[in-house]
C-alpha cells in the first residue's frame, strides 16, 4: 500500500495546545505573566537542550503540559464505511506570478470524500503551579470555558468535513500532592482530563468537476414497450445542473425514429440547439436564433472556457467523424461564436473524373436559364453546378450561351455538374444516374468556399445548418 500521512492527530494536538495557550496569572503588583503550554511527552535530548545542557538552569512555573492519555475507537459513531460524499468546487482564478487569487472563475473540481473512522481521543492537561492562588487563577479561566464543551477545529478547509469537533472536560484531579504536605513541598500539578470525538480520514480524491451538463451516450436508447404510447416510453432525463442541484427533463419525442425507437444520442446543456453558418455559430433557444448569449451559456459549464482552445464538436449521422472547430466569442456580439474549423475534420470533397482529369471542386453554381457562363469570366475548364435544366432534344436551336464550339446544343439536367473542355460542354456528374456510382457526393464551391453534398435528389449544405439538442457538444 502506498504511504499516506496527513498528520491528523498531530493537528488535534496542535489545536489543543493553542486552546490552552494565552492564559495568564497576575501577581500582587498586577503584573501579568503568560503561562507557557507545551506537549507533555518531551524527549530527554530536547529536555537537555531546554536546560542549556546545564544543571543550573531552572524550569519556570506555572506551566501546562498537554499529552495524549488514550485513543479508542468509537463504535457508536461508525457509519456506512463505503459512503462517498462529493463536493463540487469552483475556484477563483489564481495568479501564480502575483501569488494572489483573482476575481474571475478559475479551475473547477469535484472532491470525493470517503467515510472517516471515528475515535475518541483522551487528553490530559497538567497544570503545574507553585502556589494555590496561582492555580486558582489559571483554573478559573479554563473551567468557565467548558459549558458544556468547547469547539475545536483542526483546519478551516471547507472540504475537511472532519475538522470540527468538541472538547469535553471529563475529569479534574485537583492536586498531585498529598494533604497535608509531608516533608516534601513538591510542585502542585492539577490534571484535567478531556475527551474529543475525532475522525481519522483516508485521503480524498480531487477530480475534475463532475457536474453533468450534457449526456453524450446512448443511455436512453431503448425499444418501446408495445402497447404504450411514445411519452410513456420516454424516460425522464435526470441531471445535475451547474448550480449543483438535481434537475430533470424529459427526453425529446422528436428523437423517436420512424420505427418508434428512441434514438437519442445526447442532450446538450439546457437542451440548446445550434445554428452553424460557415464559421459562425449561434445558440437557438426555443427556436429563437441568438436566444442565448454564449458568455451566459458557457458559465454553466464546470470547466473554464478558453477562447481559441475550447472546441465544439458537431455529430452527424451522414459523416462518420465529428466535425471539430475551436471557438471564440465575437467580442462585439456575444450571441455569436466565431469558429475556426479544423479542415481535417470536415467532409472531404468527392473526386469526380472527366476527360480532362480528376477534380473535387466546382467553380460556380448557376441557374443556366438566367446566367450566361461566358459572362462569368471563366477561363480554362470551369466546372459548374447547374440549378436547372438546359437544352432539350426537341430544340432546333438552343440557347447560344450554352452552345458547343461546333454550334451544337448542350443538354444537361438540374443538379448536374458540367465542365467546359475548351470546345464542348460535358456532363461530369449526372445527377440522375451517377449516384449509384459515387454514393454521397461532397463538393466545395470555390467561388464561395461553401461545401455541398448531393443527398439523393438535391444539393444541400453539407454540414452547415441547425444542429438539434444532442448533436453538438463542447470540449474543454
Amino acid at each position, binding site marked *: 500500500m502506498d504511504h499516506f500521512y496527513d498528520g491528523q492527530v498531530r493537528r488535534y494536538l496542535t489545536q489543543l*495546545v*493553542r*486552546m490552552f*495557550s*494565552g*492564559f495568564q*496569572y497576575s*501577581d*500582587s*503588583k498586577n503584573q501579568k505573566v503568560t503561562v*507557557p503550554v*507545551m506537549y*507533555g*511527552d*518531551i524527549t*530527554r535530548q530536547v*529536555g537537555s*537542550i*531546554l*536546560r*542549556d*545542557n*546545564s*544543571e*543550573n*538552569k*531552572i*524550569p*519556570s*512555573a506555572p506551566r501546562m503540559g498537554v499529552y495524549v492519555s488514550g485513543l479508542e475507537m468509537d463504535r457508536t459513531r461508525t457509519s456506512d464505511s463505503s459512503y462517498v460524499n462529493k463536493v463540487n*468546487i*469552483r*475556484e*477563483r482564478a489564481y495568479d501564480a506570478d502575483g501569488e494572489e*487569487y483573482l476575481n*474571475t*472563475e478559475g479551475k473547477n473540481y469535484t472532491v470525493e470524500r470517503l467515510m472517516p473512522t471515528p475515535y475518541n481521543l483522551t487528553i490530559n492537561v497538567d497544570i503545574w503551579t*507553585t*502556589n*494555590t*492562588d496561582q492555580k486558582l487563577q489559571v483554573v478559573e479561566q479554563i473551567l468557565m470555558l467548558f459549558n458544556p464543551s468547547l*469547539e*475545536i*477545529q*483542526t*483546519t*478551516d*478547509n*471547507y472540504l475537511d468535513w472532519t475538522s*470540527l469537533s468538541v472538547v469535553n472536560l471529563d475529569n479534574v484531579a485537583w492536586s498531585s500532592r498529598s494533604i497535608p504536605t509531608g516533608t516534601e*513541598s513538591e510542585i502542585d500539578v492539577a490534571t484535567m482530563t478531556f475527551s474529543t470525538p475525532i475522525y481519522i480520514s483516508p485521503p480524498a480524491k480531487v477530480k475534475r468537476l463532475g457536474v453533468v451538463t450534457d449526456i453524450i451516450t446512448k443511455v436512453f436508447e431503448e425499444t418501446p414497450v408495445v402497447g404504450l404510447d411514445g411519452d410513456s416510453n420516454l424516460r425522464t432525463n435526470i441531471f445535475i*445542473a*451547474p448550480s449543483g*442541484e438535481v434537475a430533470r427533463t424529459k427526453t425529446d419525442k422528436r428523437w423517436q425514429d420512424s420505427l418508434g425507437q428512441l434514438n437519442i444520442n445526447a442532450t446538450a446543456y*439546457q437542451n440548446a440547439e445550434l445554428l452553424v453558418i460557415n464559421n459562425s455559430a449561434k445558440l437557438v433557444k426555443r427556436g429563437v436564433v441568438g436566444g442565448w*448569449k454564449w458568455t*451566459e451559456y458557457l*458559465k*454553466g459549464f464546470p470547466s473554464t472556457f478558453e477562447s481559441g482552445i475550447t472546441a465544439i464538436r458537431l455529430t452527424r449521422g451522414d459523416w462518420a467523424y465529428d466535425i471539430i472547430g475551436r471557438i471564440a*466569442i465575437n467580442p462585439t456580439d456575444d450571441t455569436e461564436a466565431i469558429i475556426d474549423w479544423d479542415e481535417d475534420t470536415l467532409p472531404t470533397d468527392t473526386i469526380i473524373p472527366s476527360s480532362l482529369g480528376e477534380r473535387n471542386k466546382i467553380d460556380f453554381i448557376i441557374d443556366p436559364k438566367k446566367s450566361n457562363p461566358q459572362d462569368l469570366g471563366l477561363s480554362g475548364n470551369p466546372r459548374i453546378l447547374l440549378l436547372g435544366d438546359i437544352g432539350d432534344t426537341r430544340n432546333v436551336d438552343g440557347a447560344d450561351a450554352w452552345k458547343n464550339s461546333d454550334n451544337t446544343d448542350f443538354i444537361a439536367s438540374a443538379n448536374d455538374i458540367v465542365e467546359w473542355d475548351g470546345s464542348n460542354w460535358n456532363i461530369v456528374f449526372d445527377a440522375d444516374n451517377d449516384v449509384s456510382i459515387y454514393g454521397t457526393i461532397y463538393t466545395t464551391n470555390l467561388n464561395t468556399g461553401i461545401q455541398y453534398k448531393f443527398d439523393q435528389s438535391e444539393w444541400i449544405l453539407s454540414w452547415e445548418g441547425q444542429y438539434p439538442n444532442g448533436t453538438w457538444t463542447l470540449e474543454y
Partner: protein
Amino acid sequence: MYMPRLSLYKPEKGKDYEFLDRQILEMFTIGGTDINIHKYLGPDNPDEADATADQPRYDAVKETNIQDLLFLENRDRKYDPDIYTMRSIYNLSDSDFSLSQFGMFLDNDTLNMTIPINSSVKTLGRKIMSGDVIELPHMKDEYAANDYAVALKRFYVVEDVTRASEGFSPTWYPHLYRLKLKQIVDSQEFKEILDLPADADNDDGTTLRNMLSTYEKEMQINDAVIDQAEADAPKSGYDTSHYYSLEVKSTSEGSNAQIQKVNNESVTVPPSKIGYNGYLLGDELAPNGETFGHGIQFPIGADEGDYFLRTDFMPKRLFRYNGKNWIKMNDVERMTMSNTGSRQTQKTSFINNDNFVYNEKVATASVILSKDDIVITTAIAYPVTALYLQLKFATHTKNYVIADTEGLITSNSDNTVLITLPEIASVQDKIEYDGQWSVNFYNNREAEKQGLSKALRPRADN
C-alpha cells in the same frame, strides 16, 4: 573540700561552648565553601485598595507576615537587595536528571547543608529561615550551552532549618544549623531575585531570569505551536474566500448564470450570497474577491452589486446593494480561535472587554467634523472640570482620560474648549468619519468588565 563535679554541660553557654564554637567556625573557614544568601524580608504588602481581610496589608514588611491567610502562602516575596556571604559545608552527591512532562529535573536535588549558628545569625541579623535563597558560587557552570558571557549560577531555596545532630558539641549545645535546600524554579515567589542583573558589574539589561530560566524558550516553543495552529485554522468556520460563486437564476429548465457587461466585457453578476453552505462561513470579504467598502454608514451613490461591510454591527455585517436597498449578505462569524485579547466571540466578548459606562455628564456640544481632523473647536466654555472626554459619532466613540492626555484640552481665543487629539503610541489620532459628532465631558465611568461578585456591590453602608 570537694572537687566540683565534672560536667561539660552547664546551664549556661560557657567558655567551653565558646571555645568549641570558635573551633567549629574555623573548620568552616578552612574546609567550607562560600554561600551567598538572598535574605527573605517578607511578603510584598498589597496596596490599601487591594487589601482584604484574608490578604491584609501589614504595617511593615516583615518575614513573619503571612500574605494569604486562607491558603497560608507567601507568593510575592521580597528579598534584601544586599547579599550576605558565609561559609557552609555539605555533602556532594551525584544526581541524575529525571525527565518529566515539564522538562528535566534533577532527581536528587535536595541538599542538606550545615552552617554555623552564631556566625550565620550575626551575618544575617536573624536566624536563617525557610524562604531564604542560597547561591552556591562554586557550582557555577561556565560551559552551559548558551551564548551568555557569564556562567550560570546555582540557586537553592531554604525549605527547612533545624539544628544539625552532628553540630552538637560535648557541651550539649548546638553549633550548626542543618538547612534542607531545594533548587528554585522560575516562579512568582523568586521574581525579585530573578529580576536582578545577571552581571551586576556590567549590567546590560540581562537578568538572572534571562539566563537561568527556561521560560523564554518555552514561550518561543509555545508561540511556534500556536503559529502552526493558526496556519492550520486561522479562524473558526471555513474559508471559502478562494472559491468562486456564481449568481444564478433558476428557471424551470435549470439554472442560468447571470452575466452583465462591464467595460464591454461579459462578466458574471456579483453574487447575492455565498455559493457554499456550511458552518461559520461569513468573513470580512466580499465573494469572488470583489472590492467592498466598510464603515459605519452606507455610502451614497452606490451601484447595483456593490458590497459594503458595516463595522458597527456586532458581529460585522456584509451588505449588497440591489439597486434599491442594501440587502444583508452575511454576518462576519469567523473569528480567531487563539486566546488573544481581541477575540470577540459571545463568550470572549465578556472577557476581552475594556469598555466603560460613562456617567455624570458635565458638558456637551455638537460639532461638524471631517475625516482626519485633529483639532476640534467646541462651544463649551473653558475651563471645563471633568475627568473624561468622549467623542461620539453614531455608534462609534473615542474616549480619553483627560488627566492622562497632555494637551488634550486647551482654551480657544474665545474662551471655549479647544480639543487637540493626541498621539497614541507615536501615531496621530484622527477623526475617522465625516459628520456630526457629539463632544461629551464626564466625571464618572465604570468598567463594563467586572467580576460577578463585585459588580455594582454597595460601596458603603446603606
